[in-house]
């Protein structure tokens, strides 16, 4: 199983960049194949609601997850399947959220990418983009009170989220409070169907950081090595107390906004350009070139991962769905203050 090979946050622990790279690659592969599986399940009617894939963004996401340590905070967004797995999410739990298993962390009350385990620092997103950043801020802020130091919080956002008021308020707040926040901005050039030209007017998203007094780095989001390097350093700077950091990665979404979308609006020139490269292929080519793995090994890993995914999906599909009659229809923790309205 992939997770047992390396713990998240390996970048710091081992000196070997190669080990880190391999671990990240394995999470990318797992994420890609798991996403494919979810898409297939959706197209066969087994997943209800929406399916949102991270195809094309695995390098950035896996790099983020791998550079984080246990005890850090991670608020992933829609295309972070790889990062979530790297941060410690199991394939079972990811599948449980999508398939609505009563045994999953969300217990069927929320689904698809709205999943997480808040008390393990893994925050479940709400749909309103930008809204998770201040929550990460809050955790980091509280740790200061508790005299916990040396942890960081990463919030993933896309180019679209950078337009929201919530993004602005939270980034400003993090900067004012000098919190160890790392904002990883995946600029995949389209927010649903909206191209960058209709999303912001600054020349480069990285320019926004200056306005907040925040350090920023740019990176080629299709290159795993570069992502590991850049994200790793940003996290290290935040951890060292340098205040909030922003990383802006250029990449392209290699799928629709959701599986219900065919992304026909994407500019073919972008698709054909460097930013349209498949980061998984790029990483595999790199592995082969560096002789860190051979074709047979890659094929074997792929088979192994597919098998693991099949087993997990099968197991989850056997799990019970939530039972509305067994549900406690109560939204607050304080039982005696809950208003139970008798249903007729």
């Amino acid at each position, binding site marked *: 199983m992939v997770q047992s090979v390396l713990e998240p946050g390996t970048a710091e622990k081992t000196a070997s960049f190669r080990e880190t790279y391999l671990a990240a690659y394995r999470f990318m592969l797992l994420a890609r194949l798991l996403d494919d599986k979810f898409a297939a399940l959706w197209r066969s009617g087994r997943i209800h609601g929406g399916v949102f894939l991270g195809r094309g963004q695995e390098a950035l996401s896996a790099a983020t997850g791998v550079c984080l340590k246990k005890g850090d905070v991670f608020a992933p967004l829609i295309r972070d399947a790889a990062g979530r797995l790297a941060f410690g999410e199991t394939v079972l739990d990811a599948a449980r959220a999508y398939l609505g298993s009563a045994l999953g962390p*969300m217990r069927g009350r929320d689904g698809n990418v709205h999943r997480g385990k808040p008390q393990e620092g893994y925050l479940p997103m709400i749909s309103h983009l930008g809204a998770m950043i201040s929550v*990460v801020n809050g955790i980091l802020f*509280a740790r200061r009170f508790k005299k916990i130091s040396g942890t960081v919080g990463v919030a993933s956002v896309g180019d679209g989220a950078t337009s929201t008021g919530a993004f602005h308020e939270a980034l400003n707040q993090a900067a004012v409070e000098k919190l160890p926040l790392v904002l990883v901005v995946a600029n995949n050039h389209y927010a649903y169907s909206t191209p960058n030209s209709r999303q912001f007017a600054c020349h480069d998203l990285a320019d926004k950081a200056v306005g907040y007094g925040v350090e920023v780095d740019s990176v080629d989001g299709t290159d795993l090595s570069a992502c590991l390097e850049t994200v790793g350093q940003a996290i290290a700077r935040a951890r060292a107390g340098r205040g909030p950091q922003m990383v802006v990665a250029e990449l392209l979404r290699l799928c629709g906004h959701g599986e219900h979308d065919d992304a026909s609006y994407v500019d073919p020139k972008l698709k054909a350009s460097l930013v349209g490269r498949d980061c998984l292929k790029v990483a595999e080519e790199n592995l082969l070139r560096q002789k860190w793995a051979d074709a047979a090994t890659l094929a074997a890993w792929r088979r192994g991962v597919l098998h693991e995914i099949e087993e997990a999906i099968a197991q989850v599909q056997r799990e019970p769905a939530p039972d509305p009659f067994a549900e406690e229809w109560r939204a607050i923790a304080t039982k005696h203050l809950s208003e139970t309205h008798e249903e007729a």
Partner: protein
Amino acid sequence: MSLTYLEAIREAQAHALRDDPRVFIYGQDVGMFGGAHKATKNLATEFPGRVLDSPISEDAIIGLAVGAAIEGMRPIVEMQFADFSTVGFNQIINQAATLFWRTNVPCPVTVRLPFGGTSGSGPFHSQCMETVYAHYPGLIVLTPATVEDAYSMLLEAVAIDDPVIFCEHKFLYYHLKAEKLPSEALPVGKARIAREGRDMTIVAYSAMVHEALEAAKELVPEGWEVEVVDLRSVKPIDTDTVMASVARTGRLLCVGEAWPWGGVTAEIIARVTSEGYGLLDAPPQRLNAKDTPVPFHPNLWAAHRPTARAITAAARKLLRL
């Protein structure tokens, strides 16, 4: 020695800060300035590093509070005016209010909302927001009407593991005084019979409780004894106490400072009519503010929301039905 409603709120916060290291206060101007209404006056000095100024970012203020709550703190955030909480509305209803239901992790955040009208405050410094928040599942909404309740309910709000919207009435801040802080109190979730009566029940909350009491007094010489119920919390509503009161009197008038559409008065009447239909000797009535934004000019403001005079007129009509 007497203290105002505002001082009671300040005392409660001091008490919370003193007793629980997990408590901190965050909001605009709450630090050295002591808050726009002086609700946190001197607290920053007394509790250094625990009463912190935020930028003008209601969304991020609430988001930060939720994050801090996940991490085990008990934040109190002050919205400068209830009217501005709409900028943080998303974080309140979608982040704070859904966290427990979605993840089983409680969210013990207290959001203090200076709400309600005072003369000359106008449309954006007078709003009553309890309706909107009570509507969303996952929130507790408190509306203390007395100095004692302002104190004890704020303390309890901080102790409750769920997000609490604490509606403090700005008019009562300085107008309402009490002799001393209470040593014991009704728990959150229980309504209070502010005045016992026989002929009619008026259900009210926050500042309107005082208008209702005034109206009840005016009706005594006419031979009427009106019972006044102070809801204290609008989510949850203590339906039992309201129902028992209507069982005694048979007539119901609900008074709210908020607007007519939906709201607490509509909710009470819906409950009494569906669960206590056989208790009513006359159709239940309600009195609310006029269906316009809150006006600025004192003449207009005086006519916009229910007053003791308006309540007595409505009461007389109902008593004669």
